[in-house]
């Protein structure tokens, strides 16, 4: 998995490339651990072919952290296979998908 982060003031864009599963999710969790000073988090998942529940866990933790801090989190570029998992788990309702 490859993760590219770009910070622009209070906006942090995180581009994820590769599958997000049991093996790779610890890397994503580590990259999203410290969100201090971030008002707007954009997660670009256009390069993610699939995401298992291990990845959902990372997204939920980030979403909770951003809500607690009064910021917002937006997911962009999720392909249909990834959206399907969001829909099944109800994550489509708790995440902001653009």
């Amino acid at each position, binding site marked *: 998995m490859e993760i590219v982060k770009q910070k622009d003031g209070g906006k942090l864009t995180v581009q994820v490339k590769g*599958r997000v*599963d*049991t*093996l790779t999710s610890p890397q994503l969790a580590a990259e999203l651990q410290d969100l201090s000073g971030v008002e707007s988090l954009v997660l670009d998942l256009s390069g993610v*072919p*699939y*995401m*298992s*529940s*291990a990845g*959902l*866990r990372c997204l*939920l*933790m980030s*979403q*909770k952290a951003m*809500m607690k801090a009064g910021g917002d989190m937006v997911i962009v570029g999720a392909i*249909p*296979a*990834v959206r*399907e*998992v969001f829909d*099944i*788990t*109800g994550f489509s*309702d*708790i*995440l902001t998908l653009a």
Partner: protein
Amino acid sequence: MFEKTYRPTMDGLAEAAADLDGALAFVPDSAKAVVMVAADEIFANIVRHSRASAWTLSVEETHDPEGVRLTFEDDGLAFDPLLARDPDTSLSAEERAVGGLGIFIVKKTMSPVTYERRNGKNVLTMTKSFERK
């Protein structure tokens, strides 16, 4: 048909994921993605919780309907994942628990999913049907 036995470690999981990716070459991309997701959930359960000494993954093509069937066998603690209670997917982000979603995803995306305890082993099968465009 593909069949291989792995160690119940993260290295074993990595090897199985790579092998499965290759074994699913005949499956269309969209179906392949959900099979990889479902398999990851079962791999993780076996490696983290089963205390098995080894586990085996089999992959076979099915016909009428066209699809793929995966079988997972481990000699660990008896555990029927299908008995796990489904998470409440209508809760808000604050109320949602972190975890418990894996088996739910398997049950929702694969059909049928079967479990049996056979000769001291957990045997789980899951099938994904698909149509070729």
